[in-house]
């Protein structure tokens, strides 16, 4: 399990650079990032080195921010690796809200951030099927 910071952004010039600058100035490193956008607004989702601090800093800067639980899954860094994981998740009928890739890797594996509908169910299924995932402290250190 890990904490993702989600930020509401208006679709206009300079907003994304403003968020990233605020984080940079607070010495917070972005480890993974994805943006979901519509014609009017976007949602920035990030995994950072210090989520608590990031949440506080962004809130102070006037952004609408929330913390979201996600899972950082270790996916074999080889052809078909992600497909294997997704198939197993499908077998366990886990609904995925969204996913995106992490910038760093562990020794052998690539990392993919998953937001799932039901966390406990996902966690149990992963353990049962031997899918590896990182805990928070390991993730933020990467």
């Amino acid at each position: 399990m890990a904490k993702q910071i989600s930020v509401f952004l208006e679709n206009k010039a300079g907003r994304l650079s403003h968020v990233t600058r605020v984080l940079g100035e607070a010495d917070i490193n972005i480890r993974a990032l994805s943006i979901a956008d519509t014609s009017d607004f976007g949602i920035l989702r990030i995994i950072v080195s210090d989520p608590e601090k990031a949440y506080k800093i962004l809130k102070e800067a006037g952004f609408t921010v929330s913390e979201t639980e996600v899972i950082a899954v270790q996916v074999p860094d080889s052809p078909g690796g992600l497909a294997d994981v997704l198939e197993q998740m499908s077998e366990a009928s886990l609904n995925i809200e969204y996913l995106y890739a992490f910038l760093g890797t562990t020794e052998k594996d690539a990392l993919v951030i998953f937001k799932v509908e039901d966390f406990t169910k996902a966690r149990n299924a992963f353990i049962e099927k031997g899918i590896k995932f990182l805990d928070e402290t390991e993730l933020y250190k990467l």
Partner: protein
Amino acid sequence: MSYWDIEKECMSRNELELLQTRRLKEAVYRMYAFVQPYKEKMDEAGIKPDDINSLADLKLLPFTTKKDLRDNYPFNLFAVPMGDVIRIHSSSGTTGKPTVVGYTRKDIDIWSELMARALCSAGASKRSVIQNAYGYGLFTGGLGVHYGAEKLGASVIPSSGGNTKRQIMLMQDFGTTVLTCTPSYALFMYEEMLEMGVKPEELQLKSGIFGAEPWSENMRKEIERCLQIDAYAIYGLSEIIGPGVAIECASKDGLHIAEDHFIVEVIDPITEEILSEGEQGELVISAVTKEALPMIRYRTGDLTVLNKETCACGRTHIRMQKVLGRSDDMVIIRGVNVFPSMVESVLLQIPGVEPHYLLVVDRQGTLDILEVQVEVSELVFSDEVRKLEELGAHIRRELESALGVAVKVRLVEPKFLERSEGKAKRVIDKRKL
């Protein structure tokens, strides 16, 4: 129930109308003799002061508008020499020249008296600690409330507008019991309290007297719930005297107009026809006791409904409904009248949505487009696009059903909307009509 001036506030309608008639006749004589531009208007309409013998004759007299004040900038409508004027106030003049108003010593006395009456009606007393967060300066709000609060004998904190953190500190340290400011600023203060970790229930605050901008019944509930106070509406405008023209009583069922000084009518803003009691229209006020700037039939641009029934509080003065919007704030979209207060009402009924919004009207080709920008608060924010889009669609459906016109809803970042610490700007009209 306490009154400031029971004799005036509860006088019989008969007596009141006699007093009004006498004061009206006297004002018309003064205007005709000393206010050249108004004399010319009367001459043009073929009316002489002697033609005015009853309240029913009021309708013979020409209207005064904001344009008259601008055309006679700065002092040409004054009925006394400048030597008798002891105070000048002015509006901010966002649309051209500002409007300028003047007061003699007696005008200031009457204004203070009316403001003391208003504060008393809203439950304040000499034991109150009144924090006056209306802006001090050319705007009548600050000094108007201030003089009335001193007249009442309350302890006044002249905090003026702005510097919200300090406002809250004063509230805590000085034990403020009554807050006076605009309703939008009251909610802004509440947000700031939350951020500072100040709990409203730990303050001494008991009531708030809010005015200077239209606000809905739902916003009153919101303020009362958030700040845990009684919220009263006050009404006034500088052209007439300033705050204290009308005030709510404990019944919170309309604002009593100080009819011993002001004679009111409601007209159809387009046909200028006088409407009967209970019909919604533009409020027209005659300020008949003012010395420096008497006003006859001033078109306020404020839309309201009058109610003559005697109030549960015992006051006989006519009541006006809390202003439903300014006619210049009113947006007409494809023939439908839209008031910001209606949008606010709808937003407040959607859980988690805050009443921070902006109407943007534009014309694409020949079609008018109404966009309502709504701030996304943390309560409604989601990391999933689908949920935010559902929220936007929900707000849109609610607005469309309440307003009867197609609306585009745009979700925007909070506090991004220009939320001045005074009057909140609610409408941007980009149409070139």
